[in-house]
């Protein structure tokens, strides 16, 4: 008989490194799309600058937070977190393995964001607009936070897309109800999405305004903290015992 008592377990470092490599394969199609978009963008913008146009509007905002929210869907596209996935048959604690996968995806996301920022800086220099003003409009912390929230959604819910669509539907419905009940402001606020809408508008305004350091620190801690807490809860749905 083989000595079944002494069965070696994989080294944690090797597992994490392998997750980084395997997520790279998973993100390859997304990376190709990004490369194509940035390539076309570069040609258009540089063409306009060389033609004497502004080429670049430093008041532009970038949907990096939305992009980051969607990245986990690509990171997990092959695995069924709630099914008998190959990933779960491996001899690694499942919650730790899920977190390693999220970490690997996060690492690649940061690499892509760094690349995007470099691209942006190069263009601002070429267009002679303020790089700091432009960079302030790239919500990097929020990008990481929304990545964590997106990961929590994919890991924690059996049907994340249905939940997303359902939530969007409810939001629209509440908007409709709110409009229909416009004369009765109190009722519409209570039932409708006005409060949510106002909150979203306010948040957006805060995001658009370069904050002071303390504001930034509080906001970063809150958003990252929420993302991490949600991720921990979601990953805990896959714990072994």
């Amino acid at each position, binding site marked *: 008989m*083989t000595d079944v*008592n002494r*069965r*070696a377990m994989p080294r944690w470092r090797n597992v994490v490194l392998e997750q980084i490599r395997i997520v790279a*394969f998973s993100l390859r199609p997304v990376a190709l799309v990004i490369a194509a978009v940035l390539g076309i963008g570069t040609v258009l913008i540089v063409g306009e600058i060389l033609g004497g146009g502004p080429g670049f509007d430093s008041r532009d905002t970038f949907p990096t937070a939305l992009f980051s929210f969607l990245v986990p869907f690509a990171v997990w596209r092959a695995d069924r977190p709630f099914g008998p996935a190959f990933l779960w048959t491996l001899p690694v*604690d499942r919650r730790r393995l899920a977190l390693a996968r999220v970490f690997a995806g996060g690492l690649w996301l940061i690499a892509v964001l760094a690349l995007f920022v470099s691209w942006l800086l190069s263009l601002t220099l070429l267009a002679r607009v303020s790089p700091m003003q432009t960079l302030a409009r790239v919500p990097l912390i929020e990008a990481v936070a929304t990545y964590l929230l997106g990961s929590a959604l994919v890991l924690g819910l059996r049907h994340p897309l249905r939940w997303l669509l359902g939530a969007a539907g409810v939001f629209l419905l509440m908007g409709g109800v709110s409009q229909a009940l416009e004369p009765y402001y109190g009722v519409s606020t209570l039932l409708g999405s006005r409060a949510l809408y106002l909150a979203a508008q306010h948040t957006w305004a805060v995001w658009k305004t370069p904050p002071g350091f303390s504001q930034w620190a509080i906001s970063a801690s809150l958003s990252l903290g929420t993302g991490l807490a949600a991720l921990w809860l979601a990953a805990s749905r896959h714990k*072994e015992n």
Partner: protein
Amino acid sequence: MNGLPGSFAVTTHGLSMRYGRETALAGVELRVPEGAVYVLVGANGAGKSTAMKVLLNLERPEAGRAEVFGLDSVSNGPAVRARIGYIPESHEHDYKWLTAGRLMEHAAVHYPAWDREYAAHLIKTFDVRLPRKVGTLSKGESRRLQFVLALAHRPPLLLLDEPTDGLDPIVRNRTLAQLAEHLADTPTTVVIATHHVAEVESLADHVGVLSEGRLVAQMTRDELRRTVLRYRIEVPEGWQLPRDLRIASVRRSSSGREVQCSTIGEQHDVTARLTATGASVRDVTPLPLEEAALAFLTEEGAR
């Protein structure tokens, strides 16, 4: 767990599980001795795959527990999975965009016991084309790759869920021959879930029969051969089968005077009961493994 002869590689204690209203497992008490090739027989939906998933801690039972080499499958999930080579029922691989070679590298990272030389031998034997994308493999190729992934780290326990499904007869025979070679080479306990018992008959030495989540029989192959037998008997006019016999199948001649019945029970006991009813036993033969195992599934409806 001590690895001594007579100890069990797999034990389950009152394993019960439901999918909604469907009973998947009902108080299952598996006992798979170390070194055995245990064939788990049952119709589709009998609970075979669910039992395997519970052993891997992929499914959580509502009641009961499972142990693999003495390790609880829930509290020692990773350690248990490190000791298991698993072939799932589905041929589909998750990472369709990876090449077969890269998928093997991926698996190798997670099993320090991965034997590269042996893996290369298996790749050759199973004719796995490493540069091919996993998503483009045929059913048979996909199954062969799963065999390589399951065997290459020489696990002490193999869980094979319908392993011959999707293999053509030639490849199936070659695969089973390779499995037999592996078992001769590497001391391994094997649990094979299948409803094609005849295909794995040459390997099996223990049999368990699952019916609607209940383990209705569990014994060695010799015990099965001894207790499930076909009797050819001559019977008087108007003869009726004894009510207390466990009958799996009955076939009467056109004259009604000759009857062939497959029964479950010790031969001397069954013979005595038949004789007591006026029948005379002409011939007793053991059944092939598949028929013998299926006898436990058909006994209720045989009369």
